[in-house]
């Protein structure tokens, strides 16, 4: 250890300066910690406790009797939750795949710096800048069979589709829900992919060109394998966002027609704040959390092994 450049300690300032500095840094963290505790950790803990209790919000002000894992057991057989699980699965899988494919393709098209460089990027970010709830409302208007601009536009191009009740058909409603979500998230994911592409050494592609690879082969054989890490992170993020997706269901389809677009987040909201069964809603929320954690853990493991491969 090097000696201190000048004497510090008891003589000049009371107490050890190191300890003093540490105390101060912890003290400065306290407000942030209290806020996190109050807004995140406390509700999380409270909902976890609630998930083992019965709590009918119309009759009780506080959680009442302890019912063990009854709420969780109920979830395993209750049709509403089963349906929402299935709806969510379809939504997550299609929207993640579509967003990733679109984002990666757009990034490949946009990576070259051209005259439209800045312009395309500004245009691109617009959908992401919009609030999801607003997107739901606008798409509902645009797909209105009476006056919606998209519904009318599609009808004009394909007369057979004129008057299609877009949001009144279960499959079409789900498709439109996926479209709005893909439309909203693709820009952000495109930027992530662009970042990833920028970090690929240009020489690898040039070497492949000289070695005799075709353009497609360069993309699939050279570029995409090097993008694996970025694509994995993008997939994790998109999956989590898709699992939590709520606003668009409320403003676009309201879970309908029937229960065809009732995603887990929406279903849990209904259980808790329409039917006031807080105990069951808490249990469902924790199931959703567990699913997200499992998926994330799996992704992170893939990512780590990928890193190891690239680094080791």
């Amino acid at each position, binding site marked *: 250890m090097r000696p201190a450049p000048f004497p510090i300690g008891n003589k000049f300032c009371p107490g050890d300066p190191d300890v003093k500095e540490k105390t101060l840094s912890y003290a400065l963290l306290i407000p942030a910690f209290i806020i996190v505790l109050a807004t995140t950790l406390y509700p999380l803990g409270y909902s976890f406790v609630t998930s083992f209790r019965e709590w009918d919000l119309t009759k009780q002000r506080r959680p009442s009797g302890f019912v063990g894992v009854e709420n969780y057991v109920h979830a395993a057989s209750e049709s509403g939750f089963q349906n929402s699980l299935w709806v969510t699965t379809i939504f997550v899988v299609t929207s993640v795949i579509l967003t990733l494919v679109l984002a990666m393709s757009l990034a490949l098209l946009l990576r070259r710096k051209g005259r439209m460089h800045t312009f395309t990027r500004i245009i691109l970010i617009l959908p992401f800048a919009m609030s999801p709830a607003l997107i739901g409302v606008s798409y509902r208007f645009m797909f209105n069979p009476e006056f919606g601009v998209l519904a009318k536009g599609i009808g004009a191009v394909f007369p057979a589709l004129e008057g299609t009740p877009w949001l009144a058909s279960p499959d079409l409603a789900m498709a439109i829900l996926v479209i709005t979500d893909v439309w909203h998230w693709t820009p952000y994911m495109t930027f992530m992919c662009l970042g990833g592409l920028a970090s690929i*050494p240009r*020489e690898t592609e*040039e*070497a492949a*060109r000289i*070695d*005799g690879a075709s353009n497609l082969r360069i993309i699939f054989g050279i570029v995409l394998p090097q993008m694996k890490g970025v694509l994995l992170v993008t997939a994790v993020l998109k999956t989590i966002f898709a699992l939590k997706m709520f606003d668009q269901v409320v403003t676009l389809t309201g879970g309908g027609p029937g229960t065809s677009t009732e995603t887990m987040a929406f279903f849990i909201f209904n259980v808790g704040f329409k039917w006031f069964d807080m105990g069951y809603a808490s249990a469902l929320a924790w199931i959703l959390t567990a699913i997200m954690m499992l998926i994330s853990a799996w992704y992170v493991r893939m990512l780590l092994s990928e890193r190891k*491969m690239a680094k*080791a």
Partner: protein
Amino acid sequence: MAEVRLVDIEKRYGNFLAVPQQSLTIEDGEFLVLLGPSGCGKTTTMRMIAGLEEITSGDIQIAGERINDKPPKDRDIAMVFQNYGLYPHMTVRQNIEYPLKLRGVDKAARTKRVQEMADKVELGALLDRRPSELSGGQRQRVALARAIVRTPKIFLMDEPLSNLDAKLRVTMRAELKHLHHELGVTTVYVTHDQMEAMTLASRVAVMREGRIVQLDTPKKIYAEPANLFVAGFIGSPSMNLVDGAVRNGMFRAEGIEVPVSLADREGVVIGIRPEELEIAGDASASINGKLYALELTGDSTLVTLRSGQTMLCARGPADFEAPIDAPCHLTPKPGARIHLFDRASGQRLDGTRH
């Protein structure tokens, strides 16, 4: 027969002229080095040969065939990059194999060929590793193996050694030279390191601002630099260049008087290499001044003399010692080459033998 001819090629980026119109012929089996400071257009020139950069005008011919519009893969070239350009997601074996695979060579032949190449560049034991698990030198060997695996007509090497440490650079340099001797493939090599250029090249093209200012054998470039730029660029430590004038067969500048065979003339620059100067005993020497610095390099001492505003460097014996600021005298060795240049144009002036 794989001669490369660049005929009146030119490269512009918008309004910026990167490589002005010029021609260059690289002969079959030749090791041509494009040498110059960064940004002098040497890499651009090589990339035009590779087809990675389009040419604005002119023609490129490989083995007599015009290849302007051919994509890189159809030019039958191989390239080694400064940053290796290895495929990080493939093993060493897959990296070396890739060009063969793309050209539809069958599996058995590929395996055999990869093994041969790996042995040639001493990578045999590392075939199943990934590039990230290799050292810089090993990576460059993989890049080399990948380039030679399908015996192309032309090798292009873009500063292949500049990412390696000094010691490794010297070993790899020798290996490159041996490899070229063994394969005899026409090679174009880009570098800013004059040592690499001198040691490797059959001919060196010194470039400046996109233009080839001298194209000659290393020996000739060292002995007879065509202009001030080449004179200052080639040689380490670089050639002493002093402004002055010629009067009555004598070049004169502050503290310097060297006999030359040139008619009287103003605005002359004299050039003497440090290794062609020796330390003299007294003030009757050609160059007189004060000792400015001594630098021991091991086998010799670099002696820097200061005369007015001018500094001159000489390579003296390793055991030379003198106090700084002591009077110091230098004189050209017998038979030393004295180079004279025109100050204004920078061009070499004739009749410069001492």
